């Protein structure tokens, strides 16, 4: 495990000044853009590891920043969302960043790379959503009650890593704020995934020209591992790393294997 680096925050005005993006920044080296999952940004050991080699830029999705929940209402549709993130990359001055995305963030990373093939130098997606197979319907995580989320997200919801990720603050006021924040983050990201997390990405994946690694938990119950092959078939030259005994969040549930796969790919 790595120690947590010093994390700073940048705020960048985008979308004609209507949205202020908050970006967590840590590490040193060439740029890496990390796009978080539907639950919002949580700085985890995987990001700390990446920050040892890269300058990690982790923006908070519009509406998920504490104290600024209504920013989401400034973004109408997926096209606007992708344009907004491209603007953010430019304004941060990121030149050919590595783009890493997990789950919802993986879908967003693919959309960014498909709309703007020259933006990423490499793409790493961890159990991304965005495709649909009738024989493997993606679970509706937004409609899943809180007490059933651990079993949906983790192969072993009782593992220490899973428990640590799901832990809530003990102080009642902070706990309520955390729950409301999580619920709202699902709502904000759900604007681009509800009711079926398929906004036509399959038809655009062929445009991705960056080197791509697709990491998937073999026991992912939210998005079946069969989707790894679907992404791989559509993205020319992409590589796949399947992580055993692992659910939807490989960088948390199987940190070592995920880091190894990412390091090998990124070289």
């Amino acid at each position, binding site marked *: 495990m790595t120690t947590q680096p010093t994390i700073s925050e940048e705020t960048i005005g985008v979308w004609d000044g209507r949205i202020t993006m908050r970006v967590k920044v840590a590490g040193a080296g060439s740029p890496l853009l990390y796009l978080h999952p539907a639950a919002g940004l949580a700085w985890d050991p995987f990001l700390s590891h990446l920050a040892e080699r890269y300058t990690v830029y982790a923006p908070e999705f519009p509406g998920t920043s504490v104290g600024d*929940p209504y920013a*989401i*209402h400034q973004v*109408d549709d997926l096209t606007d969302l992708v344009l907004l993130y491209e603007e953010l990359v430019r304004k941060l001055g990121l030149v050919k960043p590595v783009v890493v995305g997990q789950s919802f963030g993986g879908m967003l990373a693919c959309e960014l790379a498909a709309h703007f093939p020259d933006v990423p130098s490499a793409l790493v997606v961890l159990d991304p959503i965005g495709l649909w197979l009738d024989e493997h319907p993606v679970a509706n995580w*937004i*409609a*899943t*009650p*809180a007490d059933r989320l651990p079993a949906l997200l983790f192969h072993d919801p009782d593992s220490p890593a899973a428990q640590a990720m799901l832990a809530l603050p003990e102080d009642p006021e902070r706990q*309520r*704020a955390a*729950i*409301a*924040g999580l*619920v*709202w*983050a*699902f*709502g*904000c990201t*759900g*604007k681009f995934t*509800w*009711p*079926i997390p398929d906004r036509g990405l399959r038809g655009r994946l062929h445009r991705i020209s960056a080197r791509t690694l697709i990491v998937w938990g073999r026991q992912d119950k939210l998005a079946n591992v069969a989707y790894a092959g679907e992404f791989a078939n559509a993205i020319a030259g992409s590589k796949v790393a399947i992580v055993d005994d692992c659910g939807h969040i490989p960088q948390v549930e199987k940190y070592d294997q995920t880091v190894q796969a990412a390091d090998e790919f990124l070289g």
Partner: protein
Amino acid sequence: MKISLFAQAPYRYLPEDFEQHHESVCDVPYSLTTREGVYSSVRDFMDELMFGARSGFDAVAVTEHGQSSYDMVPNPDLVASALAYMTEAEGIDVGIFPMGRSLGKSREPLRAAEEYAMIDVMSGGRLVPGLVVGLSYDSSINNGVPPIEVRKRFDENLELVLRAWKAQTPFAWNGKFSQYPMVNMWPRPLQADLPTWITGIGNPNTMRMCLERGFGFTYLSWFGAKLTGKRIFDRFWEIADQVSVPRNPYRLGFLQTVAVAESDEQAERDYAEHLEYGFRKGLGSIPMEKLGLPGGIDIRGVQALLKDPGDFGLYYQMKTATYRDLVDAGVVIAGSPATVRDQLREFCREYGIGNLHAMLSFGSLPRHLVMKNIQLFSEEVLPHLRDLWTDTGHQHHWWPERLGGSPGTQQIPANTGLAAAR
């Protein structure tokens, strides 16, 4: 006071252990039904509404629930249109009150406006149109609208519907959620000013909108009026004071389940098991996450609900609620005619309620007992409530002119856009 008969169309023959295995919405298995059971549940529901129309109620009211076993009414306008024609043909001066055509879920808002216009024409100007944001599960799971868009869709669709009803000339509608190059409804409503109601369960933003824009507000008291009534109605009138709207009781509606029999003891014998069926297998079997999907409730609303879930009253115990629980919480007001009318009169007087919507059928209650409940209520309760506000001098601006109301003449607070538009 205006008094409506409100009814739902629950499937009446669910298995005894239904609530241990199923939810009552979205994925409730249709294999539990029989052809005869579905037909009689809906046929009886229509007959009961017509019996109410013939029994002296001021209106007959229904609402909208898709993909649900506790109310098989995916579009209330279908029911309302049948009632509109039947009552017109029979010459019954009764309001036709579809309470909850959901505009938060509607992808065809112009159709909702057209349906209401048509019902107003069919009824000869007796429509009392009710609009609602919509239940979270119905808007988002049954109808696919992202939860965070439901309220915004409602807001936009409401403007379109109101404008389509009133516009004298065709107009183009360039909305975020719908675009129409030419809006020119045929027919328009007969009523120049439709007495429009918004139905809700206590969101202060909805209440404020009703007060500022001159809509009536209907409160659905499913969660137990003895637990929730004071906080909800006090909130409503406090907001009224804040926006300088007179405390006219006729702008407030209250839906209450009522069970009347010859005596208090007989009411329990007649209705207890059917009330328990209704609330355990209906509302009690809708899980919380389906009532408030992430994004459907504003983040500040989520925090407020986590801190104080009081607006939800008995909801959390509903799945196992006994008759006594339901009575004690005020989910139902049950008993002899004297018991019922005293409680209703006191409750409506205390909270300034000028429109009572009595739900007299529930759960598995068989047809003959529904009819008994309607008859006893109409003969021995309703006449004792009607005069509640007559000596106050308030005008009923939220009721059709043909039925004694004076819509379109109410005072709108000067600080709203609507006043400027007048």
